[in-house]
């Protein structure tokens, strides 16, 4: 029985348990719902959960354990020369699995048949490889008899495993069903138990989010340590030159990249914060509902444009424009890609982000505060400046810091708008680059995961992570500290 079918069956059982338990609770109440501890629906949900939870738990454990058991049993039967060391064993097992999967397909397609004893027979003439190829399964070389036997054993074990799995899962689900029906008594605290399960589910969801973050950090940490074992940390953190090469004498100083990152982010924030904030103030305080209904979605459309499209905009429009009308007349260089180009375009990208967040925050300022200010004879702009912005400030600072982390992490626009040259320069019309672009650069193409030139990407990623994490913590702190102001 396939896993999907099993899930469907459990769902049916759960629905049945819901109906049965609910009906039983109703019957036990004798028409007076008041004698039940919880509403009848909760008894129903309790039944459904009692079916699903044990069933799913058994299924999950089985799905994890069965492949491990089968692998160890099969690899024990493989001839010793195939399992000489770990990598050879892994290779052979991969062959076995591939062949077993191929046989499944071929049997379904009819190019291989199964005889009474369960041994696969080639339906036409030719080799097993040809028979499999006929069914659309391509193998690199012809099948060795040992692997074929192992694959057969693998299929046999899998089939028995699946059968036992179905039995075990259904047994657990049915046991849960029976127990739930037995437990359905007026005193059963069904509501509390159901809410406990709901709480557990919510907790599991947040745990997954946290574990993912931890996993990301962990995977980067080990590679980062590898990097620092090959390349001195001081040279990385304080080096002023970034010139990787694959001859072995690279200079991997991250200061130019940090500088490029901060410079571009700074320019982008100089563009995004005033415009985004003013747009938000206009929308929240000045615009009529009709204008607001039009303008707000229009601004937010920008947020939906993929960043690579912004990159194109930077490359073909903003870059040449800045070069022809600012950089060249001012004698500041003739580079189409520049810090300015990327900064401005990232700023544009962040305008809707800031304006939308700030608009929500300004709207959350209670009307009573505005009334209080207007009632004292304050004008609109005095009210905005002296009452609304101060009251909304923590939220606005949070929004700005979030936007800053987005600017720091932006890659596409930088690589298309600012170029890929790592430079330490004050001229905003020079091409520079950022950490994110270099991470991509060091990891694409021919890479050797044992050289510092590649592993430096992980060190850069880790540093970037720490910087944005710091910004986010700062944002959280600011928001927390001032949150209670008008509540």
């Amino acid at each position, binding site marked *: 029985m396939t896993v999907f079918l099993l899930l469907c069956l459990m769902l049916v059982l759960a629905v049945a348990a819901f109906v049965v338990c609910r009906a039983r609770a109703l019957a036990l109440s004798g028409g007076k719902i008041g004698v039940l501890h919880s509403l009848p629906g909760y008894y129903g949900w309790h039944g459904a959960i009692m079916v699903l939870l044990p069933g799913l738990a058994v299924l999950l454990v089985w799905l994890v354990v069965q492949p491990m058991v089968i692998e160890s049993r099969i690899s024990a039967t493989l001839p010793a020369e195939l399992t000489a060391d770990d990598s050879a064993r892994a290779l052979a097992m991969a062959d076995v699995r591939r062949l077993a999967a191929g046989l499944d397909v071929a049997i379904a397609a009819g190019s291989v048949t199964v005889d009474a004893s369960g041994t696969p027979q080639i339906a036409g003439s030719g080799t097993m490889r040809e028979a499999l190829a006929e069914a659309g399964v391509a193998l690199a070389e012809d099948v060795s008899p040992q692997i074929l036997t192992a694959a057969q054993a693998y299929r046999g074990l899998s089939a028995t495993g699946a059968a036992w799995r179905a039995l075990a899962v259904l047994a657990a689900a049915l046991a849960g069903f029976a127990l739930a029906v037995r437990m359905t008594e007026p005193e059963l605290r069904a509501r509390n138990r159901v809410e406990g399960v709901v709480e557990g589910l919510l907790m599991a969801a947040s745990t997954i989010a946290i574990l993912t973050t931890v996993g990301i950090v962990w995977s980067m940490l080990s590679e980062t340590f590898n990097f620092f074992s090959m390349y001195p940390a001081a040279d990385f953190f304080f080096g002023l030159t970034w010139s990787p090469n694959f001859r072995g004498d690279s200079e991997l100083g991250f200061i130019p990249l940090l500088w490029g990152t901060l410079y571009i982010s700074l320019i982008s924030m100089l563009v995004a914060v005033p415009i985004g904030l003013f747009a938000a103030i206009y929308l929240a305080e000045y615009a009529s509902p009709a204008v607001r209904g039009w303008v707000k979605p229009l601004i937010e459309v920008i947020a939906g444009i993929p960043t690579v499209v912004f990159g194109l905009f930077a490359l073909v429009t903003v870059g040449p424009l800045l070069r022809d009308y600012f950089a060249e007349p001012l004698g500041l260089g003739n580079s189409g890609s520049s810090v300015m180009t990327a900064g401005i375009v990232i700023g544009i990208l962040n305008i809707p982000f800031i304006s939308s967040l700030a608009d929500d925050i300004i709207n959350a300022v209670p009307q009573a505060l505005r009334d*209080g200010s*207007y*009632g*004292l*004879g304050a004008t609109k702009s005095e009210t905005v400046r002296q*009452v609304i912005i101060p009251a909304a400030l923590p939220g606005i600072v949070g929004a700005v810091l979030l936007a800053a982390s987005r600017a720091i992490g932006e890659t596409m626009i930088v690589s298309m708008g600012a170029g890929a040259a790592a430079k330490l320069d004050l001229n905003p019309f020079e091409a520079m680059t950022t950490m994110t672009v270099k991470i991509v650069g060091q990891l694409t193409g021919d890479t050797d995961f044992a050289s510092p030139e590649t592993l430096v990407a992980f060190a850069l990623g880790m540093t970037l992570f720490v910087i944005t994490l710091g910004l986010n913590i700062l944002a959280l702190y600011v928001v927390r500290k001032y949150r209670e102001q008008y509540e």
Partner: protein
Amino acid sequence: MDDMRIVERTVNTKASKISAKGVQVHYGATHALKDVDVEILENTVTAFIGPSGCGKSTFLRCLNRMNDTIPSCRVDGSITLDGENIYDPRVDPVRLRARVGMVFQKPNPFPKSIYDNVAYGPKIHGLARTKAELDEIVETSLRKAALWNEAKDRLASPGTGLSGGQQQRLCIARAIATSPEVLLMDEPCSALDPIATAQVEELIDELRASFSVVIVTHSMQQAARVSQKTAFFHLGNLVEYGETGQVFTTPQDPRTEAYITGRIG
């Protein structure tokens, strides 16, 4: 009504400060006020009484055009302040509100320090030229609002950290700091204890010397204690308007009598 101390009512000679004629207010399709005529006299306390939802706050908000901030609200009729129609397009509602101050039904201190709350109005209207003058205004306003003793040691702490009743007194101090000509108070004592209520009532009586005061209240006793004129609203209509003593002792309309004796409300 035995405990009413009916204050001397020598108001008939006073000049009219605000005069409302045929005021109609609609909130979208809701007709909230129907054809209200009221004269608010100078140096007089006028009380608005009536059951909840009858339009007292709505009318109060018409008098300083606070209804402008509600998009669905439409005001018709004429309201004049010192003979000038306040709904005239040439009138700047901001200037008007500086002359007609307001204390709201719910306390709404700004999330600023107590000092800055009170200094807000004087600052934006340029009433104080020096810091000392501003300090002076803040202190007298807080004293008048009976908050000075509680607040003098914590002028720098946020106004939102005060208790509900203290916040309301802070809002009163904030309103009188701009020295308006008319002060509109929407149930200023609903969150106050009897002591603070007595202090605020005393303040209202003092304010009468320099301003006109309009007060909305649900307490008949309070209306009787502090006001010289009383207007009774019911379902958006101004049912009765006259001298407080007369409204409470010999009401002309059966609905007024029913309300003040507690039979409708």
